[in-house]
Every structure is written in C-alpha cells, then in structure tokens.
C-alpha cells in the first residue's frame, strides 16, 4: 500500500454544506437571547440596589435608562425576553413529544420570531399611546 493515495473519505455533513433552515436560527437565538437576558438580569439587580441606595445614587442610573441608549437597551431586552419566552414554550411543548415534525417545528419557529418582533412593538405602543 506504500505510495498509494488515500481514497477521499466521505465527511459528515458540515457547516459549509448545510442548508440554512429556520429551526437552526431559533436554536441559536435561544442561546443568544438567554445570554443577553443573563446580562439584563444582572443590570436589573443593580437597578434594585441603586434604588435602595437612595435618590442621589440612583440619579445617574435613572438618567441612563431614560436616555436613548437606555431606552434602546430596554427595548432590546424586552425583545430578547419575548423571543426566549415564545421559544421556551416551544421547547416545553417539544418535551412532551409534540410539534417535532419538521413542518410543525418550522411553523412554530416562525411564530416565535414573529412574536419577538411584535411583542416589544406592542408593548411600546401600549406604553406610549395607551394613556
């Protein structure tokens, strides 16, 4: 066998030849939003501590939250939460053995993404125009 070229072995399907599908995106997004909410929860706890520390200590925190970066940040946290919530429910349903057919999983995947887009817009509209 010396000198013989090694035959090309078939490789298992890899990143470059995988067809993109939406259930892949929902799985990745679940982790991304989970990590983002980890940061959001730490900020929420700091917010509680700032409130307890009194008005002077709270002032810069409140100003930041009311400013453009803070408002966009809050909007994104609500979006991440809405996504993680919708997709989390999806996973709870998967755990019961239901909704795992590719067509069903893709439909609910799009529903979770749609919810993540619609929920923060709805909440923002409710807060802004609801009275």
């Amino acid at each position, binding site marked *: 066998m010396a000198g013989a070229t090694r035959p090309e072995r078939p490789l298992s399907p890899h990143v470059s030849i995988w067809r993109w599908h939406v259930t892949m995106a929902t799985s990745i997004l679940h*982790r991304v939003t*989970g*990590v983002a*909410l*980890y940061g959001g*929860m*730490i900020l*929420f*706890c*700091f*917010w*509680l*501590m700032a*409130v*307890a*520390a009194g*008005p002077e200590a*709270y*002032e810069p*925190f*409140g100003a930041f*939250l*009311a400013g453009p970066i*803070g408002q966009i940040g809050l909007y994104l946290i*609500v979006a991440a*939460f809405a996504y993680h*919530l919708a997709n*989390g*429910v999806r*996973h*709870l349903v998967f*755990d019961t053995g239901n909704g795992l057919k590719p067509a069903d999983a893709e439909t609910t995947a799009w529903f979770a993404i749609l919810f993540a887009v619609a929920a923060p817009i709805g*909440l923002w509209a*409710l*807060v802004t125009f*609801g009275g």
Partner: protein
Amino acid sequence: MSKGKSTPLGRVRNHGAAAEGTGHFVGQRVSAIALLILATWFVLSAALTMDGPTYLAAIDFLVSPVNAVGVILLVMVALYHMRIGMGEVINDYIARPFTKVVLLLLNALVPLVIAAGALFAVLLVNFGA
C-alpha cells in the same frame, strides 16, 4: 447487587455519574414555567404602572407588598434558571479546561452575590430607615 466484595474505586464506579443527571433538566423546566408567569407579570406591570425610570416611580413600585414579593421571587428563580443555562453554554463552547473552570466558578458565584444584593435592596426599600 452486593457491594461487599468491590474495592472503593469499584464502588465509586458503580455509582456511574453523580446520579443527578436529570436534576438540572427538571429544574430548568420547572423554573421556566415559573418565569413564564413571573417575568411576564413584571414586564407588563412595570411598563404599565411606572411613569418612566424615575426614582419615585421605582420606590412606588417596590413598596407594594405584592410587587416586592413578586420581584424577590423573580430574582431568585431567574438567577437559578440563568445559572443552569449559562453553565450549559460554558460547557458546550469553552474548550480550554482552565478557562472553563474559571467561568463555571464565576457562574456559580456571581448570580449568588447579585441575588443577595438584590434581595437586600428590596428589603431595604420596604423596611429601611
């Protein structure tokens, strides 16, 4: 199965893994269901009752007993849930053993410290001078 004749190593091996493999799986789902209610409640009630992120609005929100208890539950359950989730992410993506152990340690400690601070803060707002 008798354990009388096995060596200490054999006895340890017979136990397999730490025998708590499903603990995190179940805990993550139970806390998910609790957060479904708690976090949705907080986002909606904070967004709809607080008039902007001002100091007075925050105090007003936190001095209501229902809100205080709700926030305490939210913090405890959320920190439990996110600690399991982040642990999974670290175990999946961090290959270097040293980095992995450091991150897992931080993941074990940071939520605990943060939770203690947050719970004390809610109590201070309600019962402090």
